């Protein structure tokens, strides 16, 4: 079904300047009002109440047991830890999970929009949209906002077909087997490159993901607090209970003392 049949109209630049309130209750045309000018002419856009920041560490990789997604839980606002227990991995439906990076407000909104669109598709066609279809849908929905200050960098982790996609608000849509996004991603990448292989067991994959997020939170100031790990398999997603990385730090210190450091 072509995208223009959707009742939602995106990219409607309304001439009426509003505070960006989105009315979900509007049944026919939930129009999203954007600032009337491009962000370069910042005189008309709503001034931000606080500076936005994109500090996070999220990662996702494919292996023989499905897809594993992990993220830290620190929501930062250029120097302030706005929330130490944020949720950066948001389930979209029972077999699709998305990690979020960028502006958390934008990510939360777009995840809800994506969830709604996928549910509508499921109701209309009687089957779930594949992960690559969901990625394409999200990418096309974000496209009208290219060039604005919207900042969403999500990895969609599913379980149908090639099941790991990275979608970003500047238009990137990549399929891959290993992604890490955010300010802490370089630290995580090196650990993941060392350890991730196709043939890992679920426990090994979990411990590599935890270690990668831990190392990133150790070095990156904008990542920290706890780690969330989601495992997506053919039966759907399962979530491990949130683990405080402080414990991991103390465990490691003990290990180092034992080794005689």
């Amino acid at each position: 079904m072509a995208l223009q049949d959707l009742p939602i109209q995106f990219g409607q630049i309304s001439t009426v300047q509003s505070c960006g309130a989105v009315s979900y209750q509007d049944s026919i045309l939930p129009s999203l009002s954007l600032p009337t000018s491009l962000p370069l002419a910042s005189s008309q856009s709503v001034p931000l109440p606080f500076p936005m920041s994109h500090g996070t560490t999220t990662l996702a990789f494919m292996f023989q047991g499905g897809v594993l997604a992990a993220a830290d839980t620190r929501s930062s606002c250029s120097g302030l830890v706005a929330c130490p227990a944020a949720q950066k991995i948001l389930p979209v439906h029972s077999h699709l999970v998305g990690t979020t990076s960028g502006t958390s407000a934008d990510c939360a909104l777009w995840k809800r929009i994506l969830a709604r669109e996928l549910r509508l598709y499921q109701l209309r066609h009687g089957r779930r949209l594949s992960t690559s279809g969901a990625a394409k849908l999200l990418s096309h929905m974000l496209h009208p906002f290219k060039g604005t200050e919207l900042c969403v960098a999500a990895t969609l982790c599913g379980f149908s077909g090639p099941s790991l996609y990275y979608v970003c608000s500047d238009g990137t849509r990549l399929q891959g087997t290993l992604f890490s996004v955010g300010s802490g991603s370089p630290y995580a990448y090196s650990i993941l490159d060392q350890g991730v292989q196709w043939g890992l067991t679920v426990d090994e994959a979990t411990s590599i993901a935890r270690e990668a997020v831990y190392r990133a939170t150790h070095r990156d100031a904008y990542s920290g607090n706890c780690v969330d790990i989601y495992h997506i398999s053919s039966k759907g997603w399962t979530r491990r209970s949130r683990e405080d990385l402080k414990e991991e730090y103390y465990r490691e210190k003990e290990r180092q003392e034992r080794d005689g450091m």
Partner: protein
Amino acid sequence: MALEDICGFKDTPVHRKWFPASHFEDTDRSFHMTDFGLRRLKKSGRNSGIPLQFFIPTLPNSVPFNPRPSLPFSPSNHSVTVSRPFPLSHGTTTLGFIFQGGVIAAADSRASAGGLVACPAVHKITPIHSHLVVTSSGSGADCMLWERILAREIRLYQLRHRRCLSICGTAKLLSFMLHPFKGTDVCVALTLCGWDKEVGPKLIYVCSDGARLNGDIFSVGSGSPYAYGVLDRELRWSLSKEEAISLAREAVFRATHRDAYSGNKVDIFHITAQGWSQRKREDLKEEYYRDMERRAKIVEERKRVTILDALG
């Protein structure tokens, strides 16, 4: 000093203010550089008091570094800045850490300028003296210059005072020499890795922003986050020499794998109480193939184990 002459230091009011005596001595020597590069031997009395003479750039009439000595007019008319031939970039991966067997310093060998690999075989680790090695990051030209200046100052100190300057002292000296250039485009981030006779292994990071940090583990450059991940995981005091070297190699390899501005080869130096020793340069391509083989072997092993489990 050659640097002084080329920078035109003698003719600036700062030099007159600082060294009034030497200026009167040299009034017969005009600045016009008509000797076309032939330098007279420096009088030994001039430098006796102060070993540190550095040029403070006087903006905006600062003298540009002009290699052509045939300037008949006073340099203060010249306010043209030399335009850059290519964009400078600071892509590199260098690291250093201390363990029970001394200090390891490692670096890649790619010099990048924007998106071009200007040179795939650069030496980013330079020995200063027998027990001190410096890894460089930032602008390659600035690093090379400052390493030479540092080596010269350390040698002069050694000749004057008959002992080697400590690593902390070296770092302080370098930091103070770089301080006047804070706020200019000089970009130098050096890690001094050495062995002090009194204190043992030392690792100090000095940067042209003014930072001077003592530590056990440093990694500098665009590839440094990738290296930090690997180093934080495996580094222990009790590593053996071979393990430390292979850890350094792995860290640089992971960084060069992910960072576009690092690559090509890895240099590893090991500093002990006996001095520094350099390993033969290793191409990271080989490391990549070895890593692939290792993974293939693990897969084979698992397949074999699962087949055995299925049979037994």
